[in-house]
């Protein structure tokens, strides 16, 4: 290969033109910092330079820089390199490397300094961005060498663990004296691949922190590498949330599985997603049988699903008939809830409670109350009978002693006593038979207020004759209810009859008797109020509990007992308020949920006394 030798002409050209051809800005300053010479690359960077001092042009300053490397180079003749920040010819910030090289003359003086500029604005920008990224990325970043020493750590790590450089990673991060048995960095050092893993590190306060760690080889242009970059994301919170979620899920699953109440749910498309064991038992569904939406709808009251899905919030049915999968009716309490998420419905959840046991208990309680009423009646009856026997014996005594003494008056008296008390026996027996005949309550839907109106109608003539103001009042709306019309009519007849009697005994004029019908808290209430003679404590205490009458021979003492029995058979109660001389109020309360079934009740009403 022949080599073309450079000619003198070429050398001259190079010497003369190189100054302007070189792509680095070059300028010359004198000891007064005046720019005395510069090339075209310099002009491209800083603009025209004549009649400027270096600090005017590079930095936009009027006065000298407080720290000036060129001053030192003028003094000691040592070349210097420095990174500087200044302004370009358009006034934009630039970053540049500035080489200051002294010009040395024959005497060894330095009359000039040459400034050579490398514009590093873009590189510096990239470097800054990289640093910012490294420090601010929400993850811990470490560079680790083959000996597992930390070469570099980002700001996050330094803020957390302090100065970690040159320390062993296992010691710094985990407080260990030896390398970890499972080490993602070692795996990367071994095969040059990226590896991930979970590590627990120890915080300064001694808390255990969980990290998701990624190690990547920091490859050099030749493909080899000495360093591994380890990036660790704190997943402690996430793991905690995951644990919490897992707990909540398990808790909920256990609750649903073991709940005494039936629980079931459908998703937004109506598919049955949950059907717990209690619900399966209630609806008689096999252990693993899938329940379709149609089957579910058929088991629940008609329209219930639509009602729940129709509006946000819940639908509560305190007592309703549901059906098992085989179509048998079950009394239940139902609760349906539309499930809403941020952006709409996500399904429906239901809970159902089997009321058959409760209904059975309520029935048994009613029966027990009824038996207690009968017991009281029998006790009262025996009292009445003993008095009757005593009176009869009295009659016999008068008759016998009258006969033996020949005392006609006493014979007469004895006959009258016998006749009177035999008549009383007849009346008792009649009343008691009607009490004890054990007629089954036959509840049919009827208007409760109509019964009160009929009683007032029946007594209207009598009340009018006695000058007693008798009226019926209906307060507000009272819907029809399953009541045995005839029996309830008998109750109110007894109470109104008593009230009229109380008025007759009263000294006051202008007596009145009022029958009110109204409803309060799902309870139908009858009130019979009079302003008659009233009762004192002794009488109030006895009216329901013994075979008791204040009417001498005129009463059987069974009217209120009969009334109480009928009221109890309707699941209700009867109370009274009374004050001597002021009047009396009897109140019959019939809670709707305890009223007998409208169909011919299948109550075990076979007790006869």
């Amino acid at each position: 290969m022949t080599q073309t030798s450079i000619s003198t002409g070429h050398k001259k050209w190079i010497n003369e033109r190189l100054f302007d051809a070189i792509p680095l800005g070059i300028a010359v300053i004198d000891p007064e910092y005046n720019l005395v010479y510069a090339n075209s690359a310099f002009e491209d960077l800083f603009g025209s330079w004549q009649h400027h001092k270096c600090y005017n042009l590079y930095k936009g300053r009027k006065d000298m820089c407080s720290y000036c490397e060129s001053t030192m180079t003028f003094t000691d003749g040592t070349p210097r390199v420095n990174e500087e920040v200044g302004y370009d010819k358009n006034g934009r910030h630039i970053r540049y490397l500035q080489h200051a090289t002294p010009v040395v003359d024959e005497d060894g003086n330095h009359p000039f300094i040459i400034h050579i500029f490398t514009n590093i604005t873009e590189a510096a920008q990239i470097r800054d961005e990289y640093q910012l990224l490294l420090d601010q990325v929400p993850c811990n970043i470490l560079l680790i060498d083959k000996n597992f020493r930390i070469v570099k750590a980002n700001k996050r790590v330094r803020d957390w663990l302090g100065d970690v450089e040159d320390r062993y990673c296992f010691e710094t991060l985990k407080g260990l004296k030896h390398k970890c048995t499972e080490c993602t960095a070692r795996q990367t050092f071994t095969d040059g691949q990226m590896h991930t893993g979970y590590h627990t590190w120890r915080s300064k306060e001694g808390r255990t922190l969980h990290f998701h760690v990624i190690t990547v080889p920091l490859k050099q242009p030749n493909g080899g590498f000495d360093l591994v970059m380890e990036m660790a994301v704190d997943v402690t919170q996430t793991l905690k949330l995951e644990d919490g979620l897992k707990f909540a899920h398990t808790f909920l699953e256990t609750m649903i599985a073991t709940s005494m109440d039936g629980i079931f749910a459908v998703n937004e498309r109506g598919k049955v997603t949950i059907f717990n064991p209690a619900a399966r038992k209630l609806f008689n569904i096999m252990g693993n049988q899938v329940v379709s939406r149609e089957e579910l709808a058929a088991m629940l009251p008609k329209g219930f699903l639509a009602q729940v899905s129709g509006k946000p919030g819940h639908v509560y049915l305190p007592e309703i008939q549901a059906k098992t999968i085989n179509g048998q009716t079950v009394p239940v309490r139902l609760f349906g809830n539309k499930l809403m998420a941020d952006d709409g419905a996500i399904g429906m959840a239901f809970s159902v409670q089997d009321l058959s046991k409760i209904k059975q208990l309520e029935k048994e309680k009613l029966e027990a109350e009824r038996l207690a009423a009968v017991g009281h009646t029998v006790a009262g009856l025996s009292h009445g009978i003993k008095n009757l026997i005593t009176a009869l014996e009295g009659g016999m005594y008068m008759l016998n002693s009258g006969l033996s003494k020949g005392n006609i008056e006493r014979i007469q008296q004895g006959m009258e006593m016998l006749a009177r008390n035999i008549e009383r026996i007849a009346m008792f027996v009649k009343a008691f038979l009607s009490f004890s005949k054990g007629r089954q309550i036959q509840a049919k839907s009827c208007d409760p207020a109509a019964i009160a109106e009929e009683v007032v109608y029946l007594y209207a003539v009598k009340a009018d004759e006695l000058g007693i103001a008798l009226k019926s009042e209906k307060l507000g709306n009272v819907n029809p209810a399953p009541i045995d019309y005839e029996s309830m009519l008998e109750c109110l007849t007894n109470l109104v009859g008593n009230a009229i009697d109380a008025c007759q005994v009263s000294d006051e004029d202008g007596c009145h008797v009022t029958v009110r019908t109204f409803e309060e808290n799902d309870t139908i209430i009858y009130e019979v109020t009079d302003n008659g003679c009233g009762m004192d404590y002794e009488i109030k205490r006895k009216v329901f509990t013994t075979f008791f009458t204040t009417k001498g021979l005129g009463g059987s003492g069974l009217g209120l007992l009969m009334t109480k029995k009928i009221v109890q058979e309707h699941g209700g109660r009867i109370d009274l308020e009374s004050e001597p001389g002021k009047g009396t109020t009897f109140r019959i309360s019939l809670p709707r949920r305890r009223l007998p079934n409208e169909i011919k009740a299948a109550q075990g009403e076979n007790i006869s006394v």
Partner: protein
Amino acid sequence: MNLVMSAAKKILIVDDEQDILAYFEAIFQDSGYDTVVARDGSEGLELAKSEKPDLIALDITMPGQSGMKTYRQYKRHPALKDIPVIIITAINDSFKSLLDELNGFSTPEAFLNKPVDPQELLKVVAGILADKI
């Protein structure tokens, strides 16, 4: 009855039933006692004060005011508290449950259940009155 008495003993009968009053009155009168009768508790109290009877036969179940209340009124009254009382009642409660209602007052001298045997009644009355002498 051949009882010889310096003066006839007086018995107050308290009962709400007219026929029973007539019956007991006849029994006692036939045995030589004087009788006064009251139809209820408050009348019984007034008569006891005015008539100073030697013995009171008292019913329990009466309208207006129960015999137990009347009994306590007698026992609270300084002039009446020493008059012996026989309770004659048709109620089914045991004698003990009646005693529970005494609230610390002394027990009645006798307790008889209706219907009563006239001979038994006279025997009890005679016994009590004999003790008093």
